């Protein structure tokens, strides 16, 4: 019974949050100086009849609730307006740029989680050792560092300076690689941005894993496990780490908003043609329809990730469901 209520509650909460985003986006679009049709017309040098047509398309003469209904309908059907900069439908522009970001964010998150967990586990296990203190300090320093600055330094050192990696983009222009060569080329371009984003994320995962493992280590069931005569490594692996993983697992999903923010500047530094670079380009114009489409996509993705995190947490920890 509790499980069903928990599930429904979480889904309702996420739906409400998405609705909030829609309302927010709708009103934001209306407070832009000048009405949207005018701006679009200025951008495209349209004749007056076309402006009237656009106003009819946007439904600007309708009452606000009707406009909102129209907006929601458009959004749900993927009609996000026309980008000022690219002069094409926003949805199409965004769709082209999704995969590079998924690749970059996915690899960095995986790498940062794996390395961060290991560092955190070791830190908690050998608390106060030189390596623990060193990694704590390094984590703090990386936390205090703007990701893009780290990216610029890596770019200067390893791409522009030593020439080990390309300075930007996702493929070597005009090389026309196929098969394995093409994949290697992409990986070559991916390396530095992925390292930058990973380094920026490791610290937080390590700190969370360390503190949640330290919390678990004081629990009675660990004393029991030791009293049973289990070896220390087994106590750690089977009893301590398993339980300490809970907060970290959900953090990975909860952190997606933070990763997205990091990806925006890192993609700009390495001209990685993903959603982050697109956001930076859109902010530069500023291209409002595109910005709003991106904001919507980022928000909905993060909300969904949060929902998934809540569901995983509920699955892994029965106490949450009961509460």
């Amino acid at each position, binding site marked *: 019974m509790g499980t069903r209520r928990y599930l429904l509650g979480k889904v309702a*909460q996420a739906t*409400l*949050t998405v609705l*909030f*985003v829609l309302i927010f986006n709708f009103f*934001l679009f209306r*407070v*832009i100086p000048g009405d949207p049709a005018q701006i679009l017309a200025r951008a495209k040098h349209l004749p007056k009849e076309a402006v009237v047509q656009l106003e009819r398309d946007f439904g600007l003469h309708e009452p606000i609730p009707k406009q909102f209904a129209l907006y929601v309908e458009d959004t749900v059907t993927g009609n996000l307006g026309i980008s000022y900069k690219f002069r094409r439908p926003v949805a199409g522009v965004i769709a082209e740029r999704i995969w590079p970001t998924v690749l970059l964010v996915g690899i960095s998150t995986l790498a940062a989680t794996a390395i961060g967990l290991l560092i955190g586990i070791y830190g908690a296990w050998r608390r106060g050792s030189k390596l623990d203190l060193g990694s704590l300090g390094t984590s*703090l*320093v990386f*936390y*205090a*560092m*703007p990701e*893009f*600055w780290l990216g*610029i*330094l890596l*770019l*200067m050192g390893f791409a*522009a*300076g030593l020439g080990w990696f390309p*300075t930007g983009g996702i493929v070597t222009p005009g090389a026309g690689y196929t098969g394995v060569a093409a994949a290697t080329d992409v990986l070559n371009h991916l390396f530095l941005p992925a390292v930058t984003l990973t380094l920026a994320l490791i610290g937080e995962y390590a700190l969370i894993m360390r503190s949640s493992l330290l919390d678990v280590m004081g629990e009675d069931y660990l004393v029991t496990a030791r009293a049973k005569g289990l070896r220390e490594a087994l106590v750690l692996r089977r009893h301590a780490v398993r339980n300490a993983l809970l907060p970290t697992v959900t953090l990975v999903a909860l952190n*997606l*908003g*933070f990763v*997205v*923010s990091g990806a*925006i*500047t890192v993609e*700009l*530094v390495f001209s990685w043609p993903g959603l982050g670079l697109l*956001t*930076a380009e*859109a*902010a*530069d114009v*500023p291209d*409002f329809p595109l*910005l*709003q489409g*991106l*904001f919507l996509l*980022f*928000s909905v993705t*993060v*909300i969904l990730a*949060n929902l998934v995190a809540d569901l995983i947490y509920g699955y892994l920890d029965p106490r949450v469901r009961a509460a």
Partner: protein
Amino acid sequence: MSDGTIAPPAEPGAPPAPPSPRAIAWSRRRRSAARVWRTFRKNRMGMTGLVILVFFVLVALFAPLLADPAGLRATEATGGVLEGPSLEYPLGTDILGRSVLTLTIHGSRISLLVGFAATLLSMLIGSVLGIAAGFYGRWRDAVLMRLTDWFLVIPFLPLAIVLASLIGPSLPTIIFVIGVTSWPGTARLVRAQTLSVKERPYVERARALGAGGWHLVTRHILPNVFPIIFANTTLTVAIAILSETTLSFLGLGDPLRVSWGSILEFAFSAGASTAGAWWWLLPPGLAIVLVVLAFTMVGYALDEILNPRLRSR
């Protein structure tokens, strides 16, 4: 006397007038502040952070004395283009021939100003909403916490970018944008603390004596929530400074003022990294890292001292 007016001078020989309740409250607060300071002084991490902070605040305050502000204008730049460090220009020059040291010194002013001002705004919003939600409870709590959760979930940078590009880049814009997007953490913290303070016996006693909502909030809730807000503030400044840097790097800062973020933005777009001009890229970045690290260290130290939940550890 309870209205806090100063007592008339006592007659010589007469017993001294009892101090007013306000005087008692303030002397108690002074003593507890002194106690916190004594504990803080023994905290090595906190003191290191504080020393770094004082250094940067002094640099920001005396920037015009340390480096001639004329050196910020491209037309009056005296150095060569992209010169490495020399005796005359200890940190080299940028692509317009300006001293990077001068830029970094003056950049501290905007970076710190935005950090402090945005934090103040964020603390104000967070405290008011947090106390309102915790103190009044019921539907107000439900509505405010929904709002807080919403702001917590929405990815910060995309939201800040949308707002900043809508309002147009300027100094007030960047302060506003960072302030209105970074308060939810504070609001939750303040709400939790308010909920626990609200149930304490002395608040019940004050309520039984007929104290109204405003009196309870300003005299009993706020003084007890304040330490938590204070520790949280220093951590928020660190985040606000990082946010300023990021927004400026994306070209959403005030285009007419030099901040550490805008130096990096200009350096990057002018190709400092391909030119290998490390002296242009390192100083502003290191300044950011040091200041953010310092605020974080002070914040952790204060949290350890002021947060009752952590004290027993």
